[in-house]
């Protein structure tokens, strides 16, 4: 090797070494269990992260198949964000175990249970048994349907991203603040829109909308399924129809992944409108992010309530 070649080789090695930190600081691979968490993670992480969700917004997040293709996604993940509260208990543990990825094992730095700081409702009191259906002993896992919890989730994701990528902390913080500001502004608008309908009674299929109803002042008076995870029985349907008639309930809210036959018969029996209301981002094609989830649902509710002639204050 002559001196010229040697010099070139040295320059190449130096450039390679200089480039190594930049390569190591590539985009973080974030995998979330639901599209809601993915949307919030995108808000905080921006273009510094790649985000994929395992479950689609239009499928029941309790019953996701633990497909091997998800193992490949988790194998590459730097961070796994889960809803928690046992929502994914039926399918996520074997995926994590088979991922061979030490970063995202339960308790590792790359594992984030987004529920830990959220406001959780429906925590069962007293003895919990399966006679209560497929009840979640740690509380209702559909907590992301409260925008305040959306901010809490974003904060938890920010903390984790800042821990994993301290160099981008300032950017993540700026994006977090921006997200929180937009949530606050949007929430003011949503609350004002829903304010005239505070206390309106609705029935829902599953207990997916507990946090949503609590935040926006709806009163969930009954459920199409007699107990969580138990399909509706004729007697329960009849009881629900009678109760809805008695309380003059005008809306039945159904998640996109449930069969509409029973809700429709409830609707026919009571004159209530059946609304297919997505509890998740991606539940219908118009709902492409966290803000549109609330925009869409509130617009859907308001339109139906006006149509039903529900009296406002």
């Amino acid at each position: 090797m002559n001196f010229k070649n040697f010099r070139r080789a040295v320059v190449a090695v130096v450039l390679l070494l200089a480039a190594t930190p930049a390569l190591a600081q590539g985009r973080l691979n974030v995998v979330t269990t639901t599209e809601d968490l993915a949307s919030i993670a995108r808000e905080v992480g921006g273009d510094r992260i790649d985000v994929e969700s395992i479950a689609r917004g239009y499928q029941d997040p309790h019953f996701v198949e633990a497909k091997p293709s998800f193992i490949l996604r988790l194998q590459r993940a730097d961070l796994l964000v889960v809803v928690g509260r046992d929502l994914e208990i039926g399918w996520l543990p074997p995926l994590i175990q088979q991922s061979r990825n030490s970063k995202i094992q339960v308790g590792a730095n790359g594992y984030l249970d987004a529920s830990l700081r959220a406001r959780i409702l429906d925590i069962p009191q007293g003895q919990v048994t399966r006679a209560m259906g497929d009840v979640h002993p740690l509380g209702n896992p559909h907590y992301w349907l409260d925008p305040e919890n959306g901010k809490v989730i974003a904060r938890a994701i920010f903390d984790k991203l800042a821990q994993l990528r301290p160099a981008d902390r300032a950017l993540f913080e700026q994006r977090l603040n921006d997200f929180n500001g937009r949530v606050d502004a949007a929430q003011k608008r949503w609350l004002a829109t829903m304010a005239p309908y505070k206390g309106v009674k609705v029935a829902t299929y599953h207990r997916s909308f507990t946090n949503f109803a609590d935040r926006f002042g709806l009163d969930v008076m009954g459920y199409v399924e007699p107990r969580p995870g138990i399909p509706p029985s004729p007697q329960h349907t009849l009881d629900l129809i009678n109760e809805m008639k008695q309380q003059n309930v005008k809306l039945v809210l159904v998640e996109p992944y449930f069969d509409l036959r029973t809700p429709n018969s409830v609707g026919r029996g009571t004159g209530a409108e059946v609304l297919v209301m997505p509890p998740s981002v991606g539940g219908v094609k118009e709902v492409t992010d966290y803000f549109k989830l609330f925009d869409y649902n509130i617009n859907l509710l308001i339109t139906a309530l006006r149509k039903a002639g529900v009296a406002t204050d």
Partner: protein
Amino acid sequence: MRGQYLLCSCVFLVILGGGLSSALAQTNDAQGLRQEIDQLRKELADIQKRYDDRITALEARLGGQVPTPGAPAPPDQTPAPAAEVPAGAAGAGGPTGSLPIYGAATAASKIFNPDIAVIGDFLGAAGHNEVNPSPTFQMHETEATFQAIVDPYARADFFFAYGQEGVELEEGFITFPTVPGGLLAKVGKTRAAFGKVNTLHNHQLPWTDRPLVTDNLVGGDEGISDAGFSVARLIPNPWIFLEATGEAYFGTNEVFTANKRGDLTYVGHLRGYHDITESANIDLGGSYARGHNDAGLVNGVDFGRFVTNLWGVDATVRWRPLQRAIYRSFLGRSEVIWSRREQVGGTQQSMGYYASGDYQFARRWFTGVRFDRSDLADDAAVHDSGQSLTLTYWPSEFSQIRGQFRRIRYAEESTAYELLFQFMFSIGAHGAHPF
């Protein structure tokens, strides 16, 4: 070194001297000093109270109950477990009043207990079977499971099967999910990764029984399940999920019997999986197993040193529309297995297969069909064949009722027509099985 000490001493003295002179200058008046101390005490008490309130609020939030801002935290109503000081001990310099009981049974003490579940499998049979009649009623199997994370590096799973013949450890193994090299390692007693059905527990099967090829060539209910170790690795490629598994066992089952320490059973499995669409996927596998059999055993001595080789291929097609996943699904599956068994009188080369389809037509209802055919492992000249129809009802995720009409032609001599019915029920927290 001496210079460093000198420098440090000087710096210390300067700081101390500066501090003292400053303090002396500020506290010439003793009364003023007392007032300052009182003020500091008050501020400290305020800070402590603020932090106590914040901690209480945080604890309440973690417990899922957000206190109203400004509202006092609810007092802890649970009295601490305590025991009385024994009579006569008072006044002897020992403790007085109640003694704390350490390790008392509280909810917190259960946190590290494993997830425990019990699955009952009640089986009934009606009809006619001269070759392999099962009891009219039997508690076919009760599976007790204990599963937990061991430490940051491993988890453990135990499955005990209580059957008609007694109790056995169906599986009991530790899994190391993050071994260097991208390996997934298991050590203990496991069901070998040979094909599909051999890896499944009874409650995972879509039938009340196992296919004839499993009974005849792969060891039946127990299957190839022994103590050993298993290592699985994903094979990186841009197209499909590809996983290779290698296992070594000390054989004690119907198919493989280790007659001395070196007689290990070796199992290899290659699995390829691909999503055709978001609702449909295909799962293909190839398996190989080799080990000694018991054909040459005479009075506990292995004179024959005979070996059995097994080859298998399996194919599974699944369809489950995501938006209607809880109402509709289809699973089509087939396995073909070849056995080459050395024994007295020559080598037997047998073959068997099953093909099945299971369709979910409502949230709680499933129906299925299965076709079976298998030679006998020790006599390839004769074979059994069968057909089954199943209907399954799920009252909930935790129980199922299944009926199976089964016709089996045994070795072309006797035909059995049976109606099998099964009640399966699960209590506790049973961990999810791999896909």
